């Protein structure tokens, strides 16, 4: 995956570049807003990582300009400003995701991989299947190996989100943001407990587990055979 990192702090930029290369991605770095915008325009990148505060041109303006020109490349906005209003501004400007500094590298990696694979809205499927687990988004029914599974509404949304990103790591923060629409840190490991409940419903009485814990990162649902 080709990634463009627009970040003015050299050390952060090089840390990201090196880490992304280690993760098997091809990362370029732009040190200021104007260079970043020029590279984003004609670089053919799959994901842009844009810092909010940049010399010459700020991050939000880059995203706005790209969107106004019709560029649909997914953008992850990085910012030291992390309050509710800043996040709303970032997403309104056309950003697809927003991550507050300081962040864990795994969190960033998982998010840009999710962004790059995100299907366009019109292509969203009405039915997800992982192994013998099937979730029907229209009838709100979940079936594993032909057996219906009864889920609470929130458990359904949790599973829906995990299955939408099947084969990808999903972090706790991503779950909290997308399933609960909370952007704060609830201190206790609430997500882990929800996951373990969900796991007991979809995995417990079956031989092959589908919902996996990825140490130090989050969770992933996938058919164990791949």
């Amino acid at each position, binding site marked *: 995956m080709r990634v463009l990192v627009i970040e003015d702090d050299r050390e952060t930029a090089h840390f990201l570049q090196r880490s992304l290369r280690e993760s098997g991605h091809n990362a370029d770095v732009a040190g200021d807003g104007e260079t970043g915008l020029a590279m984003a325009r004609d670089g053919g990148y799959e994901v842009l990582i844009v810092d909010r505060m940049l010399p010459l041109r700020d991050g939000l303006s880059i995203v706005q300009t790209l969107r106004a020109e019709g560029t649909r490349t997914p953008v992850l906005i990085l910012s030291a400003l*992390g*309050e*509710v209003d800043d996040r709303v501004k970032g997403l309104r400007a056309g950003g697809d995701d927003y991550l507050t500094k300081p962040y864990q590298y795994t969190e960033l990696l998982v998010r840009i991989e999710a962004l790059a694979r995100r299907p366009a809205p019109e292509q969203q499927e009405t039915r997800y299947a992982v192994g013998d687990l099937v979730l029907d988004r229209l009838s709100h029914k979940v079936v594993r190996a032909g057996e219906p599974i009864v889920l609470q509404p929130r458990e359904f949304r949790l599973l829906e989100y995990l299955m939408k990103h099947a084969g990808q790591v999903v972090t706790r923060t991503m779950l909290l943001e997308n399933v*609960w629409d909370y952007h*704060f840190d*609830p*201190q206790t490991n609430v997500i882990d*407990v929800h996951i373990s409940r969900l796991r007991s419903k979809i995995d417990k009485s079956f031989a092959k587990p589908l919902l996996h814990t990825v140490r130090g990162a989050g969770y992933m649902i996938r058919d164990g055979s791949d």
Partner: protein
Amino acid sequence: MTALTRLLLSTPFRLALIYMGAFILAAGVTVGFIAWRANELLTTSVVETLRAEVVGLREQYQAGGPARLSAIIAERAADPGSSLYLLIDSAGQRAAGNLRQVPPELMDGEQRGVFTYVPQSGPTQGKPRVAVGVQIDVPGGLTLVVGRDIEDLRRFAWTMGRLGLWSVIILSALGIGGGLLVSRSVLRRIESVNETTRSIMSGDLSRRIPLNGSGDELDRLAESLNAMLARIEELMRALREVSDNIAHDLKTPLNRLRNRAEAALRSSAGPAVYRDGLMKTIEEADELIKTFNSLLLIARLEGGAVAESMERLNPASIIADVAELYEPVADEAGLTLSVSAEPGLALTANRELVSQAVANLVDNAIKYSPNGRLHGANGAEVAAPVSIVLKRVDGAIEIAVGDRGPGVAPQDRQRALQRFVRLEKSRSRPGSGLGLSLVAAVARLHGGSIRLEDNGPGLRAVLNLPIGGPNPALAAAGHGREH
């Protein structure tokens, strides 16, 4: 710049002056026009009268010849009054009348108009006076001049004119004087604002603009400025407090982090120890970041920075969502989480922040609840409850989160809401000590409050939020009075 030039340059004075100028100009034009028209009318009417008289005299001449005309003129000229006559015979000699000669002004052109003459008798004998007259030729070579003395009228008009001029002068003087007085009082009040501003700029943030209590627009302006100053002072104070806290309370964990890294580096036990040291360093850094984020959030809340993102929402759904988030955790800790909400309530608030506040309270309640089971009245074990109760109290809603834990002693309750205060000495349970102060900041941002109560046994934290959301103006004014 002297006080006088400042006064003369002041806006109210300049306005008064412009107003006065316009007034005088308008008055002058009006009076001038009236005077001109009056003069015209007067002269015309006198000329008309004279004409009528001339017609009469001509008839007398036709009836009685020159002798009769001469006699009548002599008779009329003898009457005291303003009428003037002169009859010149064909030889060019004065035949009758009270004028000495044909006035030179009537000799040419239209032979009528204004002329001056010198009366030969009467109280004003010898002094030139003004009159209006016509000169006509009477058949038989006679010349007749008939006139009217208008000196008195002229004099009256002059007097009126002077009177008008004086009244304009007096009015102007009064206007300028009034303008000066008004400007001075306005200027003095504005000067007091300036003076206060200067002293605030030089560092004394506690100064306020004095009010004169009249409630006029300047007073209202001063009131708004004072409210703004109070807010600024409050923000400055909050900022100072935050930086003090950061300096004081983040140094300890930073130092711990440094020590850990140093210890790992000094050890010669090999990669495993390094690795362990680095992992712990990252963990420590993550904790620091969390604390730092909470601190920043509290500071921003106290700065009122997110006040604009309030919306109308249903508080019951907020607590239902938070309860749903924590229910599995409570269940795992052997607690029951009960929710009771008054239906049909609405609240103007920031959903995210109120959710976070309630989440913090529930998190605390779960954290401090006794593990496992309580002993019921009959000795049977019952689950320790954590309760969330939502109800309406006057113009506010109250969200009460209660537990059956050790509670907080009455004398410690206020302190527990402060930053970094953790009441248990051992600090064995996780947490930064910012949870409750974050709740307090959220409450303040919404114009509400947080209080801790005895839950008999246990602790009940009650979050009080006004239904209509915060009223920034009132809140700021309230702060102003406190200081």
